[in-house]
């Protein structure tokens, strides 16, 4: 399909701006809501008071919400970037002739591993690595690898063998085939894997608050411990908004019409 059929990007500057806005409006609105709540939670004190009328303190103030959001994003981003590099790289490596021996094992492990609940993986990371941010990053990285590896393998093996044959027959080098044919064709599937991975990571990172990482899970955990529902609501709202913002961003990224 021609790009202009689905994505209205016509001539003038103004209309291009409108098209861009139309394309990105949903994630931007979620982002705005997320930031507004992060920095303006105190404005909602009266509302939160309704939930928890008897408690003295309804605003979570142990650490600023902005810091918690920042740490949450940081942990997820580091783990996800590493997972993308290792996962896509690994999947490419085992589909090349040199690494093909490892393909069956890696494919099996990626599919069996996804049955492991992320909480359990997080819990196992603690005895192995201790409390704090590092074990969470490692756990997120390990777990986040699986959907990426799996989808990259699926994307690469889903390419019509005729296309591969033709690419070789036309005299493309291995590198050219990978960059110009295999990766572009597998990209939508790979991105879907990354999206799954990041979504899971955001959720699992929040649970990481129980093993000593400080992030948006903190208000929830401390709300549960102290029986303060207002804290829980603040944390839950922000995590929910963060997840939706990121997910809708991915949705827009993937929405670009793929041809073929």
């Amino acid at each position, binding site marked *: 399909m021609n790009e202009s059929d689905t994505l209205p990007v016509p001539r003038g500057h103004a209309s291009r701006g409108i098209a861009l806005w139309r394309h990105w409006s949903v994630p931007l609105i979620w982002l705005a809501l997320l930031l507004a709540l992060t920095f303006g939670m105190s404005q909602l004190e009266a509302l939160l008071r309704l939930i928890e009328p008897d408690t003295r303190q309804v605003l979570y103030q142990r650490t600023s919400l902005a810091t918690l959001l920042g740490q949450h994003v940081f942990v997820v981003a580091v783990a996800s970037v590493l997972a993308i590099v290792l996962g896509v790289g690994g999947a490419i490596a085992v589909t090349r002739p040199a690494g093909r021996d490892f393909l069956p094992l890696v494919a099996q492990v990626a599919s069996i591993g996804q049955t492991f609940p992320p909480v359990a993986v997080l819990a196992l990371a603690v005895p192995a690595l201790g409390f704090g941010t590092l074990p969470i990053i490692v756990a997120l990285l390990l777990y986040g690898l699986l959907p990426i590896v799996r989808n990259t393998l699926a994307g690469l093996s889903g390419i019509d063998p*005729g296309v591969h*044959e*033709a690419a070789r*027959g*036309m*005299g*493309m*080098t291995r590198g050219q085939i990978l960059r110009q044919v295999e990766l572009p064709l597998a990209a939508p599937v790979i991105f879907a894997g990354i999206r799954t991975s990041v979504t899971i990571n955001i959720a699992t990172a929040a649970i990481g608050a129980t093993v000593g990482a400080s992030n948006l899970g903190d208000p929830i955990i401390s709300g549960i411990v102290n029986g303060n529902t207002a804290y829980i609501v603040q944390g839950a709202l922000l995590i929910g908004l963060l997840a939706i913002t990121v997910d809708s961003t991915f949705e827009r990224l993937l929405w670009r019409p793929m041809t073929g």
Partner: protein
Amino acid sequence: MIELFDVTKRFGSETAVDGISLRVEKGEFCALVGTSGCGKSTTLRMINRLIEHSEGEIHLDGQPVRSFNEELLRRRIGYVIQNTGLFPHWTVARNIGLVPRLLKWPRGKIQARTDELLGLLGLPREEFADKYPHQLSGGQAQRVGVARALAADPEILLMDEPFGALDPITRQTLQRELQDLQARLNKTVVFVTHDMDEALALADRLVVMHQGRIVQQGRPIDLLHDPVDAFVESLLGGMDRGLKEASLTCVSERMAPFGPRLLASERIPYRAPLSQALSVMLWHRVERLTVVDDEDIPIGELSLRRLLGAKPS
């Protein structure tokens, strides 16, 4: 010129191609025919080194193929496969320009060449250049496949059942177009097919393969007359061979000048094959046809007796 000297290919303990020797002259159209699994595709793919041969030598213009860098070798050889193998994420124009781009032609030259090929294959540029492969019909996609193979003007064209997935009508159209193209471009073509009619219609030389060996090769007409064994005979159509032979001969070759009698009412173009003339006679229950030229002007007549083989002297 392509030469194979005693070439063998083994996959594990299986021998796919067993010591074959073959020589395809420059400008010759050579068809490899045989049942599936006879090694014809393997043979083809050894020429551009998609498969490396186990033993023997393969030469292009006197030089062993192994002496070339394999990617550079393939860029010099056009290659067309059954499922087109067009890149689904590229436009038609970009697909056609693939090899020129690999060869780092300047942009303007690639564009000009793409336009030229689109014209050559009857795909109007305005309509097709920016389409994606999934928007094309099977026949159009295969035309693009052929255009892509011809893009860098290779001397050699390898075609692996290029029309195998098309419906009979489209297939015939494309066969005719390929014939015209070959008449104009005069490439060295190696064409793999299991369709004997296709091979007979297109090839200057027929190579029949069976179980990894070449059982017979030669001009189509010679093979029809002299099949070396029962396998070749059955492949050539057994009792249908007469019609096949008739399809190789042109009406003009058997046509006689006007006789004393009235013009026959049924007409046949002088370039039509004899098989078609026979069909017209059968259909209208007549023994005589009027032969006409391209402008539908009578130029002679064809009788059943002459058609059956009283050769023109």
